[in-house]
């Protein structure tokens, strides 16, 4: 006897916290909303840009902006911060979950306390947030990564992926799309030899890049769908004898990558504008808190300079397609 996983396979029973209220699209945006950002960890340049966008938006809607977070990307420390935010009676928590499940009980407690929870960057379990700001559709990113890799490899050869952590929600879903793409006949000459994990840690990514190149002498492209990974891999290759022989691509921040694009290590890479994510999250949270939307599929709201957005299935809000950066256009971006 006893309780096993299959007994609870249905997962957490969905919390029906926001049910009962009805959306009023014409409700005015409240002023003075307390909106708190809780990124994965504080000192990460990518998240800094994201929450920077959030700050701009919060000021636009005359709210109170707050940024808190742990110094390490651990789920447990995020929980303590969520608890603190509950105590401080914030109106909106914008959070990038380090572990989709570990933060769940606390987020639900927050929602019970009337706080709207918007996830960004890395989603929490669907049952414990009101909306998720997706930087781009999973399908779009996966396709674009494979397209860039194929171009750089000249249509054939070995490629490897340098990802974040093996349980990073985003990266895994993109990699899944990439694998489906690679299975298609037009990409049959591309061979994915290894998926390495740099844990979004600069040094670890650096060492992993090093290990990939040692293990696979014929490697043509490293695809790194994380800003930490792509920067570390580029730095390693640019200073090693592999420069010019191995191409790097993936998702990176223009400011971090500029040097490697200029010195030729990197030909092209992609990203959305992370500041827009934080920006959009603030508007989504504010709209929800003001009662304009409840997070149900099909609801629409206005997000300042970004225009109007529609909520998709499961409360997902997609920011838009990613931008490709090359030597030609990189100087037009500063983030």
């Amino acid at each position, binding site marked *: *006897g*006893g*309780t*096993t*996983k*299959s*007994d*609870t*396979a249905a*997962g*957490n*029973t969905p919390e029906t916290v926001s049910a009962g209220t009805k959306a009023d699209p014409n409700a005015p945006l409240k002023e003075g909303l307390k909106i708190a950002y809780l990124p994965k960890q504080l000192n990460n340049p990518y998240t800094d840009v994201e929450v920077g966008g959030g700050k701009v938006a919060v000021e636009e809607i005359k709210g109170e902006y*707050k940024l*808190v977070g*742990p*110094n*390490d990307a*651990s*789920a*447990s420390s995020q*929980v*303590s*911060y969520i*608890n*603190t935010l*509950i*105590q*401080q*009676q914030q109106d909106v928590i914008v959070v990038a979950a380090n*572990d*989709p*499940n*570990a933060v*769940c*009980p606390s987020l639900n407690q927050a929602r019970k306390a009337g706080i709207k929870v918007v996830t960004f960057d890395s989603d929490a*379990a669907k049952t414990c947030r009101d909306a998720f700001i997706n930087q781009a559709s999973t399908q779009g990113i996966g396709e674009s990564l494979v397209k860039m890799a194929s171009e750089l490899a000249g249509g054939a050869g070995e490629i490897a992926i340098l990802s974040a*952590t*093996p*349980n990073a929600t985003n990266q895994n879903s993109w990699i899944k799309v990439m694998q489906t793409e690679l299975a298609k006949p037009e990409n049959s000459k591309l061979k994915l030899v290894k998926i390495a*994990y740099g*844990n979004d840690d600069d040094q670890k990514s650096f060492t992993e890049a090093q290990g990939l190149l040692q293990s696979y002498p014929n490697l043509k492209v490293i695809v790194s769908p994380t800003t930490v990974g792509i920067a570390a891999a580029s730095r390693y290759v640019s200073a090693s004898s592999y420069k010019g022989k191995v191409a790097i691509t993936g998702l990176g921040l223009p400011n971090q990558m500029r040097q490697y694009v200029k010195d030729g290590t990197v030909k092209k890479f992609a990203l959305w504008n992370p500041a827009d994510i934080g920006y959009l999250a603030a508007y989504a949270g504010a709209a929800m808190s003001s009662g304009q939307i409840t997070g149900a599929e099909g609801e629409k709201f206005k997000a300042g300079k970004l225009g109007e957005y529609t909520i998709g299935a499961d409360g997902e809000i997609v920011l838009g397609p990613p931008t490709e950066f090359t030597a030609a256009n990189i100087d037009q971006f500063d983030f």
Partner: protein
Amino acid sequence: MSAELTVTRTARLANWNVAIIAITVLVLIVAAATVDSFGTSRNFGFLVLDLLPIALVALPMTLVIVTGEIDLSVASSLGLSSAVMGYLWNANQPIETIIPLCLLLGAVLGAVNGFFVTFLGLPSLAVTIGTLALYRGLAFVVLGDSAVADFPALYTDWVTGTIGGTPIPNVLIVIVVLAVVFGVVLHATPVGRAVFAVGASEQAARFAGLRPGRLKFWLYVASGLVAGLAGVLWTLRYSSARADNGAGLELAVVAAVLLGGVSIFGGRGALPGVIAGVVLLGALQNALRLSDVSNEALNVVTGVLLIVSVLAPNLARSVLQRRRT
């Protein structure tokens, strides 16, 4: 050691124990008065949950340190227990089997430490740094970097829940029961007498017919067992079994124990002081976070407190002595 020195040392221990409890109470009062929502019952629940792992692991650690040894592997044992819990849960084992297994695992991990320290006579600092890496590594081997969730709500809710309608968290029962057990063992049983004797002078303890090796071995087993329990509770609290759970906790635990007035050289210490130390650290962390003071300030406070807890009595003594002569 001169007579004079030893007299003041006894006094110092008593004083520190009283002092740390007084400081803790003071901090609690000041925080409740000045920090918004610190004194709420909900915050009390959060505070207890945040303290939980450190409080549990600090109990056997106190005994281990009083015998003059140390166990730095506790956080890794916690992590391995959590990882194994996730692994077995994924393998569709009933949770009622998994939990005892995890406790047993913890005890075995402790026994391994005990074996190296007592049977091979290796320095515990080196041994437990070794097993710190080993156990954490095994945790990653077991579960990789993935997380296991979906633990039964019955259990996770119990861990995060409160007793009946009261604001008292369920896990407080666990803490109190274990604290009483360890406190009674340390201060009111022959085993406790042996713990102090072994820590103050292993040789003299041997000549009094005690068995220091055996005692230490079982203390390590207890330390592992409690770390295993902490691993289970951690997993249930976050509903997430991960190999990296509790990483770095060992330093916080040692800091809390030393802050509680336990001598790193063994032979001295008292459990009430340690509990005050744990509460002090937890309450400060909680209050500072509520006042939007950053994490980093807390690091500094922890470190300074730790040093001052040993330094202050030393300084006080030398000032007293200077005045006397």
